C-alpha cells in the first residue's frame, strides 16, 4: 500500500470514527487505535500518539459549542483539570515504558468495557439535579443552566470534590494510556459521584478532554510517537467526521447505532486481547 492510498484510507476511516464518536458521545480513539494497530500493523504507541492528537482536535471543536451553550461548569472544569492533567502525565510515562503486548491487551479490555457502558447507557439513566446551597465558600462551583428539552432551569452544586478529583486522576490515566478522551470515566464520575446533571457533566467532560489529552500528547510528541504522516490525515478526517456526526446524531436512531457499535467494539476488543491479527 502506498502512502497516498494509506492516507486516503486514514482520512475516510477518521471521518467515520469522528462521526461515530460524535453520534455516540465517544472520542475517536476507540476506532482509530484498533484501525492503526490491527488494520495497518503500526505500533500501539504510535497509534495512541496519533489518536491522542485527534482527541484534542475533536475536543476543541466540541468545546466551542458547549461554551456557547453555557452548560460547561468552567470552575469545576479548571479544578478537575489539575487531576486529569496529573493522571495524563503519569499515564503517558507509564505507557512509554509498558511493553507493546501489555498495552494492546489493556486496550482490548478497555474496548469491552466501553461496549458494556454503551449497552447500559441505552437504558437511559438520568441524574436528578441537586439544589444549590447558599452561602459564600472557598472554591465556589455552583452552576445552573437551562435544559432545552424541558425549558427548566437546572441548578446544582458539585459534591464529593475529593472523590471526584481522585476519579479524574484515573480518567487522565486512562486517556493517556489508551489515547482516548476519557469521557467514559469523566462523565460517570461527575454524574454519579459528584451529582452533576448528565448534560452539564457531558459538556464539562468534553471541555476538559482537550487539556487532558494535551498533557499526554506533549510527552508522546517528545518521544517521537506523534508522526505527522499518520496523525495529520487522522486529525483532518476526525474533525470533519465529528461535524458530520453531530448532524447525523439528530436523525439516526442512537440506540440502534449504539448496539451495533458495541458489538463491533467487543469483537475488536477480544481480537486485541487474544492477539489474533
Amino acid at each position, binding site marked *: 500500500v502506498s502512502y497516498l492510498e494509506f492516507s486516503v484510507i486514514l482520512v475516510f476511516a477518521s471521518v467515520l470514527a469522528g462521526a461515530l464518536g460524535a453520534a455516540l458521545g465517544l472520542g475517536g480513539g476507540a476506532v482509530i487505535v484498533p484501525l492503526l494497530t490491527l488494520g495497518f500493523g503500526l505500533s500501539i504507541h504510535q497509534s495512541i500518539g496519533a489518536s491522542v492528537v485527534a482527541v484534542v482536535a475533536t475536543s476543541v471543536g466540541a468545546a466551542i459549542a458547549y461554551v456557547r451553550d453555557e452548560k460547561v461548569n468552567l470552575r469545576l472544569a479548571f479544578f478537575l483539570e489539575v487531576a486529569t492533567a496529573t493522571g495524563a502525565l503519569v499515564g503517558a510515562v507509564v505507557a512509554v515504558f509498558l511493553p507493546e503486548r501489555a498495552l494492546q491487551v489493556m486496550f482490548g479490555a478497555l474496548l469491552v468495557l466501553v461496549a458494556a457502558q454503551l449497552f447500559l447507557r441505552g437504558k437511559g439513566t438520568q441524574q436528578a439535579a441537586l439544589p444549590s446551597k447558599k452561602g459564600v465558600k472557598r472554591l465556589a462551583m455552583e452552576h445552573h443552566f437551562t435544559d432545552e428539552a424541558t425549558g427548566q432551569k437546572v441548578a446544582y452544586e458539585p459534591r464529593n470534590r475529593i472523590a471526584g478529583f481522585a476519579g479524574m486522576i484515573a480518567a487522565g490515566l486512562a486517556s493517556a494510556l489508551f489515547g482516548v478522551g476519557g469521557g467514559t470515566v469523566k462523565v460517570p464520575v461527575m454524574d454519579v459521584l459528584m451529582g452533576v446533571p448528565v448534560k452539564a457533566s457531558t459538556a464539562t467532560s468534553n471541555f476538559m478532554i482537550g487539556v487532558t489529552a494535551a498533557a499526554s500528547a506533549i510527552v508522546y510528541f517528545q*518521544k517521537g510517537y506523534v508522526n505527522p504522516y499518520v496523525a495529520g490525515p487522522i486529525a483532518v478526517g476526525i474533525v470533519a467526521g465529528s461535524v458530520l456526526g453531530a448532524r447525523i446524531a439528530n436523525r439516526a436512531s442512537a440506540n440502534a447505532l449504539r448496539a451495533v457499535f458495541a458489538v463491533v467494539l467487543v469483537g475488536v476488543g477480544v481480537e486485541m486481547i487474544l492477539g489474533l491479527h
Partner: protein
Amino acid sequence: LSGQGRTAEFPEYRFMAKWLPGLLATGAGCGLALVVAGWVLSLLSRGAYRLPYKLLASRRASYPTGFAQLYHQLLHHGAPAVGALGLLVLVATPVARVVMAFLYYACRRQLDFAAITLAVLALLALGGVVGFVI
C-alpha cells in the same frame, strides 16, 4: 443574564462565553490549515506518495521527534515539520484557553482559581520536560 437568556453565576462565565469560542476556533483553524499544508507538501515532496506507507509510518522516517528537531526541520526541509507544527498548534489550543483563564483570574486577583489554572499550566509544561528526559 447572557445574551441567549441563560444564566451564569460568575462574571468569568460571560467573559469566557464571549472570548473562548473565538480563541478555540482560531487555534483549531490555524492548526488544521498547517496540518493540511504539511500533508499535501509531504505527498508531493520527493515522490513520497508512491512510497510504501510503512517506510513513512515507522519511527525511523524523517519527521521531527521533539521541539529541537521540529525547529531544525522547519528551517531546512519542511514538509513533515509543517504538519508536525500544525499538530502542535492543535495541541496548544486548549493550553491557550488555560492561559486565558489564568490571566483573567490573576488580573482580578481571584487567587484560588489563578492558582488552580497555574497548576494546570505547570503540569502541561512538566509534560514537555518529562517527555524530553525519559
